[in-house]
């Protein structure tokens, strides 16, 4: 039991990410309003970003900028151990931009749908589609 608890506590970041994915997916599938679905989609993307960033984290280590001052003479080689790994951050910069882009296009389409049907509720849209 004790190892289970410590195991659980050691990985609490991943439970948050799994929770977020589930919330996002639920919103996307269950909600009827289109904008809520878009928000759900964004939650899923953010959850994946959180997962990636938590991969690179190292407890008690500093951000990956090599400390330097103008007067620094000899460059002592930077140890990899005392900086958090930069790669996930680079990847997630890209993923954030992707989620912004998708959000932009989704909202543009939502505007187009609103202009066409006058509503963003899926049930009303379904009604308005059937009668010509």
């Amino acid at each position, binding site marked *: 039991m004790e190892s289970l608890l410590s195991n659980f506590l050691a990985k609490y970041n991943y439970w948050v990410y799994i929770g977020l994915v*589930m919330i996002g997916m639920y919103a996307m599938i269950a909600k009827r309003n289109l904008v809520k679905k878009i928000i759900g989609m964004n939650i899923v993307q953010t959850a994946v970003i959180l997962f990636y960033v938590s991969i690179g984290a190292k*407890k008690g280590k500093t951000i990956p*900028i090599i400390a330097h001052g103008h007067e620094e003479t000899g460059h002592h080689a930077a140890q990899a151990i005392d900086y958090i790994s930069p790669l996930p951050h680079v990847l997630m910069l890209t993923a954030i931009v992707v989620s912004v882009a998708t959000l932009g296009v989704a909202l543009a389409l939502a505007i187009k749908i609103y202009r066409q049907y006058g509503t963003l509720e899926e049930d009303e849209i379904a009604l308005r589609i059937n009668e010509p």
Partner: protein
Amino acid sequence: MKTFALITVLLLGGLLFYGTPDFPDWGDPASPASLHVSPYYIEHAVEDTAVPNIVTAVLADYRGYDTMFETAVIFSAGIACLFLLRVYRRKSARTRLYRHNLTGVTLRIAKGGKLPEGSAEFERIDSVWVPYDMIIKVTSRLIVPFVQLFALYVIAHGHHSPGGGFQGGVIFGAAIILYALSNDLRRAFRRLSEKAALLASAAGVLIYVGTGLLCLLLGGNFLDYSMLAEMLHTDAIMARSHGILIVEIGVGLAVMAVMVSLYYNLSSAGRHDEGL
């Protein structure tokens, strides 16, 4: 529908949960992810590219190709919104509101009638009546220049502190959007027209791809900045650092332009006459 959603979500949660026992602990320095490629970046970034901020080094040099496509994604999002929403044909005859500057009287002209352009006393206002509010206009007029200045700082200072093209570009875009929000969209158009925004976004990404092509033409692989060495009269390492700076500027320009054109299209739903 809700139960179906619940079931799928629980199933999905189970699937994600299935892998977690073998995850390395969170923040554990010896996790495989931080033992393979990251150490190389941390140890060699400064020697290779003379850029202390390793994230910018990896972002613009080691994995610069990813970031180029990143800018292409943001560019295509801008073009997509333009393509989806833009309405060119003047269809409906709309009622227009004009305010007489001296007296503050509002003039309502129905059926699409228009006052002669450039008449000094009258100034067109949004049909959704916006109260004339001194505080917002004055404060935004004060803040906007400083925000833009800070944005340029963020772009330029990406080497040494957290920042870079994307962040700087977004801040710069935010400045212009703040200006458009505080005044009205038409004034923002006079500052940065739609055509200028499109040109700037294309130019920004072209800077990025252009430097890559330049390296290709100079004999190296695509995006290999060390090829720019003799052009920039520096050694290979500094050439990489300068290459990263040029690329960051390109990204900043592109992201700023796209953010602004996204706002233009989304706020006016493509008609480009009245915004939020």
